[in-house]
């Protein structure tokens, strides 16, 4: 009798140690605590379910390992002949039900709060596109695009990768601490998903529909997330960066942005008042092209099959100017070509179209001035 118990103990101890090793290992890459009340509660729920699973695993696998050891033929030559027991079946059906109820209750309570989007202080409309995000502050009534800022050279292994490789953007979303922020998500092409693990907010961005989610952030700082729904070629390359500031700093930032927009529109007026040379336009145009167009059309304009047509010797860059302008500004219904009019300024559009018509061996000699673009809007 004692030898059975000591064997049982040994088997259990080994199983528990294995379990703990796994748990310790897991702590090295556990889900993060995050900076919202909700992210912390979700972490607790995660730990609760993990511990329950580990305990159940230790018990079941412990029993199995013990049996493998003690009931192998060399040790246990005569098999028992029991093969059913209603009582046992009832017990091991009922006990898991109780455990599950124990999990379902905290999950339900947390979920009800997550789905309560009422009484928000500010609302941000998030629009996913291939392959960037657009953020619009509804109360302040302005918005901007947020693109991946990691240089191509790092992706292609020509340069060492920076610390925030693939998690950095040109214009981060700026949010205040302590206020309840309501997110509205949508898309203008395929389904994307906006996810910031530190907030525990993940919401699909579905074309033609708006979804809502909310958060209330405790700690200022920079938080990073990624698109969480396969959305085509550059799904890995549309990160999310959120800069969280104190309420006062945030209010100031909003004012600064509104001022900057006024200044930029003043700049835009100046830009379209003058006539630009071919050299000036193609220089700016090349930068715009590398930042926005090369990912699909390739930096030498050679394209990628029929999905991303070649611009070198291509039909549209060498054809009627008006059609080229319309295609770049408004995109195309049937293909992945997006409308760039909302994202690029008059000067940027004029210069990139000029560049495309005079680079990669194209030689139309056409020049497009910003004023032309302005009038076409």
């Amino acid at each position, binding site marked *: 009798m004692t030898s059975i118990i000591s064997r049982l103990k040994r088997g259990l101890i080994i199983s528990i140690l294995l379990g703990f090793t796994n748990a310790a290992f*897991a702590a090295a890459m556990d*889900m993060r605590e995050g900076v919202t009340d*909700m992210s912390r*509660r*979700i972490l607790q*729920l*995660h730990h609760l*379910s993990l511990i329950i*699973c580990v305990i*159940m*695993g230790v018990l*079941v*696998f412990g*029993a199995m390992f013990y049996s*493998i050891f003690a*009931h192998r*033929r060399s040790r*246990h030559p005569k*098999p*028992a002949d029991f*093969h059913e027991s209603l009582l*046992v*079946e009832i017990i*091991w059906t009922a006990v898991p*039900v109780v455990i*599950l109820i124990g*999990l*379902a209750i905290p999950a*339900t309570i947390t*979920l*009800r709060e997550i789905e309560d989007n009422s009484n928000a202080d500010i609302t941000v409309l998030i629009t996913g596109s291939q392959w960037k995000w657009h953020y619009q502050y509804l109360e302040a009534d302005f918005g901007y695009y947020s693109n991946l800022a990691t240089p191509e050279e790092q*992706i292609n*292994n020509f340069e060492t*990768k920076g*610390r*925030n*490789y*693939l*998690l950095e953007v040109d214009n981060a979303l700026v949010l205040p601490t302590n206020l309840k922020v309501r997110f509205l998500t949508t898309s203008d*092409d395929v*389904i994307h*998903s906006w*996810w910031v*693990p530190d907030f*525990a*907010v993940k919401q*699909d961005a*579905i074309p*033609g*529909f708006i*979804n809502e989610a909310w958060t209330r952030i405790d700690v200022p700082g920079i938080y990073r*997330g*990624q698109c*969480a729904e*396969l959305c*085509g070629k550059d*799904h890995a390359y549309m990160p999310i960066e959120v800069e969280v500031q104190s309420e006062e700093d945030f209010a100031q930032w909003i004012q600064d942005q509104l001022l900057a927009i006024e200044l930029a529109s003043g700049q835009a007026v100046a830009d379209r008042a003058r006539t630009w040379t071919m050299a000036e336009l193609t220089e700016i145009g090349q930068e715009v092209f590398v930042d926005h167009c090369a990912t699909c059309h390739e930096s030498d304009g050679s394209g990628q*099959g029929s*999905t991303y047509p070649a611009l070198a010797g291509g039909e549209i860059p060498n054809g009627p100017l008006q059609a080229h302008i319309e295609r770049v500004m408004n995109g195309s219904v049937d293909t*992945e070509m997006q409308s760039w009019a909302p994202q690029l300024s008059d000067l940027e559009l004029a210069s990139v179209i000029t560049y495309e018509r005079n680079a990669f061996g194209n030689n139309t000699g056409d020049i497009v001035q910003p004023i032309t673009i302005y009038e076409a809007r």
Partner: protein
Amino acid sequence: MSVTADHVIPNRSPLVAFLSRWLLTTNHKEIGTLYLLLSFTLFFIAGAMAMVIRLELFQPGIQFADPLLYNQMVTMHGLIMVFGVVMPGFVGLANWLLPMMIGAPDMALPRLNNFSFWILPFAFTLLISSLFMDGGAPNFGWTFYAPLSTTYGPPSTDFFILGIHMMGISSVLGAINIIVTIFNLRVEGMTLMKMPLFVWTWLITAFLLVMVMPVLAGAVTMMLTDRHFGTSFFAASGGGDPTLFQHIFWFFGHPEVYILILPGFGIASQIIPTFARKKLFGYHSMVYATISIAVLSFMVWGHHMFATGMPLAGELFFMYMTMLIAIPTGVKVFNWVATMWRGSMTFETPMLFAIGFVILFTIGGFSGLMLALVPADFQYHDTFFVVAHFHYVLYPGAIFCIMAAVYYWLPKWTGNMYDERLGKIHFWTAIIAVNMTFFPMHFLGLAGMPRRIVDYSLQFADFNMLTSIGAGLLGLTQVLFLYIVVKAIRGGKKATSRVWEGAEGLEWTLPSPAPIHTFEVPPNFPIVEEEYKHE
């Protein structure tokens, strides 16, 4: 097989004889072999695609596969593994074993059986050839959500749709055949509650197939009309809804993943009692648990959609139903352990794979339970945590069961024992490789790595490298498995009828190798009683 098969045209050249035999066969053993060969071939093809994926993910940055190719690899790997490896593998086992297990001479509809198989090589040639088409192969994930697959899918998407239709027809016809066979051709005296559990799980799986493959057919047809015939099922611009696609797809998709595992449950339920030398514990309970799993599988599809903006009531319903499925699944695991308990076990390769299956599948079940909890799912959804979960239930789940079945029944099929030492090496290397490949994925997901990405940020680098090394090792174990199987087919220690000391079932009353025609006269009742005592 030395006996002349039925469809060989006499007095023709050897080539014609060979082709006419294999193209025209209506014999369940030959068709079973064809399915298994197809499954094994596609296993290597889809496995090679996994190697491309893991090679690219070995380090951050783009090295071998640009995003366009990578997304095609991810998509095709999933499609071929699901539709070309696991499903045909289980169907091959069904074909070989079901008639023998129920004492029938063949399947109920032998010509339909041939047709069901031969659709598949054409379907997969179509699907795989899309890699070489303009625009490349499907690149939208094996779950092909709209509108990425409808408005933005490459031209090959239409061929993909046709391929899916062909596979669906093959599955439905095969499933009808299996149900009719089980209901009508059981030997006298074998009531439903006396059938081996492998027969039960296949009966239930076949009903699932008949019910949900047509739903998939509907979904891809709607995709086709959205793409080319002006409908707007899934496009908001025409009044449609992309989420509708997900509902229809997952209404098929969730029962589909149970289709991918239930026959495996049946296999484990045959193998463990044999090597424990003890009857399966709780036969009735196992049957009811399998039926409950199948019924519940129709009520949980929304758990794939928690992040789509589902209202609270929907989230709660699907959370509770999904948690419920853990109960009958747990019951099955407990019953297998109870079968082992106080048995008299030996650990030949089939038993090793069966035990490995029970342990590792259970780990996959645990991560599934965690995923069911909606608030936590918001952090797990579309990350590598999900990838870890389904690979645990599919690889150490379905694939281990198929391998266990091959080791277990290969002596019956070929008359030769496989090399036991090599089998054990295969098992232990696979255990190490499988865990090295898929366990770190849990951590990657928890750390925030999304799925289906060609490139990742630096904090994910170490575990990705570990995973890729494990995957390389896993790929090598397949080559070893191939070698073991080929070696056993060509020769080895001669197998007896019984093969395994503790084996019970009508197939073990037949000679090894089983003759091409068996049970043309039904076995008599005492033998049946002897093999299938469950009371």
